[in-house]
């Protein structure tokens, strides 16, 4: 593990998964993990295994659904897709994150001595 990679910010993995599924459509676990790593420009220290509990949580909440399918390499894999509830939830969470990030950003922009 390279030291300059940052850990996944707490509570963001689910959002990343959902956003990835929204952008790329149904995917299996390995592809999701790889997409997240690629999108982060390989800056994220993702333990790929942690993806699975996150997927399970999302499925429990009904935001994604799963079914068995076949990967591009012909393997039997579980394919995850965004549900309607997940789409709605994503919109909400996105807005929340934008706001939260905006607030943090403003603090970071406070010039010294003001």
């Amino acid at each position, binding site marked *: 593990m390279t030291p300059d990679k940052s850990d996944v910010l707490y509570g963001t993995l689910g959002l990343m998964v959902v956003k990835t599924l929204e952008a790329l459509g149904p995917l*299996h*676990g*390995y*592809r999701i*993990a*790889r997409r997240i790593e690629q999108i982060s420009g390989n800056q994220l220290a993702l*333990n*790929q*295994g*942690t993806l*699975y*509990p996150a997927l*399970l*949580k999302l*499925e*429990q*909440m*009904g935001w994604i659904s799963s079914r068995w399918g076949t*990967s591009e*390499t012909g*393997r*039997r*894999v*579980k394919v995850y897709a965004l549900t309607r509830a997940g789409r709605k939830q994503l919109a909400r969470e996105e807005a929340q994150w934008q706001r939260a990030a905006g607030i943090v950003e403003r603090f970071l922009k406070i010039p010294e001595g003001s």
Partner: protein
Amino acid sequence: MITRLRIFLFRLRALVRARQMDRDLEDEIGSHLAEAAEEYIRQGLSPEEARRAARRSFGGVPQTQEICRQVRSFAWLEELSRDLRYALRTLRKNPAFTVTAAATLALAIGANTVMFSVVDAVLLRPLPYRAPEELAMLWTEDPAINLREGRSALWDVAQWRERSESFVDIATFDSVSTLLTGADGVEQADGASMSPNLLSVLGVQPILGRAFSTDEAGQRQAVILISHRFWQARFGGAPDALGATLIVNGLPSQIVGVLPAGFAIAGVDADLWRPHPARPAVRGGQTWFVVARLRPGVSDGHAQTEMSAIARRLDDELPAEARNQGIAVVPLSLYVVGPQPRLALWLLGAAVFCVFLIAAANVTSLSLARGAARAREMAVRAALGANAGRLVRQLLTESLVLAVLSGSIGTLLAVWGIRLVRAFGPATLPRLNEVSVDLRVLGCAIAIALLSGIVVGLAPAMTALRRDLRPSGEESGRTVSGGSSSRRMRRSLVVAEFALAIVLLVGAGLLVRSWWHVINVDVGFDSERVLLMGISTPPALTVPAERTALYLRVLEEVQAVPGVERAGIIDDLFTGNPRERVITVERNDGAVTERARLTSDEVSPDFFAAMGTPLLRGRVFSATDRIDAPLVAIVNEAMARRSWPRQDPVGRRFTFGARDAGAPWFTVVGVVGDMRRQGPERTALPQVFVSLAQSPASRSVNLLIRTSSDDLLGMGDALREAVRRVDRNAPIVGVAPLEQQLGTYVAQRRFQTSLLTGFSLVALLMAAVGVYGLIQYSIATRTREIGLRMAIGAQRADIFRMVVGEGLALSVTGAVIGLAGAWWLGRAGSSLLFGVAAGDPLTFATVLLLLIAVAAAACYVPARRAMNVDPIRALRVT
């Protein structure tokens, strides 16, 4: 909200398909790793390196699986089911422990549940009246003649009602002899009489029809209320019973209402209730039970103070011979179950709880021993990362599983036991018929089972906590000692068991001794081979002389039956609560009028011979003591002592009533021995017997028939036949051996005694098992030490003495503590004893010896085993 529901449903599904989901996850991770490895190969790594890299980028596979499992499960449920499975497996692996512990606890739980159901029904459940705590019985008392709980005359009750302010209302009632004429002749019925306000005082409504009005009572109208039981039996519960007419005591009487099921008051439980007026003009006459409702907020004590003052004022206004009356206010609930059965029940309840404590102590001790043996297992689990709380929970789960198991068996035992108690319990214990398995009782069983689970689980759990959880060299070796704290706890448990057992044993011993005294009391008559038969006269015989004639003819006929040796008549053999009467007796110093509590009965000449009561002086009645001859009487010793102290009563005269009242004088012609007709535990009252032929006969009498036959009941038919030959319409109340009648007096004592004896034997057995288990275990863990002792020269006898000594020291310590407790408890319950002191040395000594013998026996087997330890084997290090 919807999300939560989704999560719940998902987890529920996951719970059912746990295995499938585990497999799926494994497959999924497998594919993931394969895909990743393939990509690494494409990047140019060797297959071996690619697989390793894939694993590295994935992280820990088992951890991921575990986290997933946690995410999808109800964590606590999963853990619980794992604990449960583990507990069941552990219990199954140790059948000896499981069976012993479960059987012990089940017995204790069952016994406690039965006892609780009895205490609940008899003592705790409120009486079936409105606001029963406001109801009290009012009694006439006279300390001078040792009269307690005396019934009262209507005139007195009227005075009380007028003068007192404590009560909303006062009502009177009593059972009265009642004959019912039906299609097939006359029969005896359970009848009673009530003042018209009784139902409103009790707050009870007829379920059909109405109560009596005051007018009906005043005009003595022939109206009756019937019991629910009678209504069901005679009318099949049909509503047209209202308005129907029954011939009661020869008088057509209209049914105006039906009482609720189970209606009874203070032991008076009748099928036919008639009204009686509440305000008679004159004093005296029949006496009644009195029940009153206190005004809200008025305490029993306050009412008692007021009534005592009223009694004093009445005393001042009344003539001398009527004085000295007190009035007692007794809460109804206290009267219904008197202080003695109450105390007995509480003591029995405490006793059975002691049995439970001993059982719990035993099982605790067992599981402590096992806990010590499992020290290694616990240590290993701790080393693997289980924290203390986790281990305690595991142990508690185990003991709760055990408790549930024993609880279920115990409840079954209780159901069976309650049936047994209802079948064999004493009829004299009030409300016993209300004992049943209901929710309260089941709740009690569950509570006891859970309590036992916690108690039994807690001790090993506590020691498990305290013990150093790391495996030490010593504990992994042969000298596992079980930890000194567990050892101390087990020793104190054994001491406590013996202490409790001895308390119970002494209690049982004292009761057994009392019982022995009671059944060996000289009741003053010989009940062997004597039959008691009650007969009544048909209502047509209104002239008393006709009744007398009928009785004497029946007597003649009965005496002619083969197998009959002697037969006698008395009006009422077992009078429960005789009234006090004014009597004037002639002594050396002249005639004295006094008030005395005595019974006066009409008897036939052969009565004393039939009863086997000895004639001490003078003569019994003869055929010449007829209505036209001078009036004669026979007195018993108690009467002779009371009225003619140190004088010969024969030839003396007395009369009922004051000296100048003009009542006829009786001349005493004989003195007979005392008869304990109120039961063997009550001393004989003064008794006066007059000749049946010289007095107006009552409506019903008892025939005493001494037979030469051993088949008493076989005689019954011949006797019935003899009565019918005289008068087809004379109702026969029943034929029963006299001993059976006496038996009901001692039934309650027998019930208490056998229960407590049973409990204490169980307790002793359990204590013995306890000391046996402890010693056995102690030897098993000290084999090495014993071997060492023998190797350096200890004799086998020394070892034997050492082991037995250890067990005896514990049991004797327990015994000494127990003896102190028993002495204290015996004094608290001394009112239950009869003819034996609370500190009876014989009982104490016997029990102590018995206990030491049992303890020694329990130590013998392990001691023998210790004695035969082979020192070479014991010392060989493995």
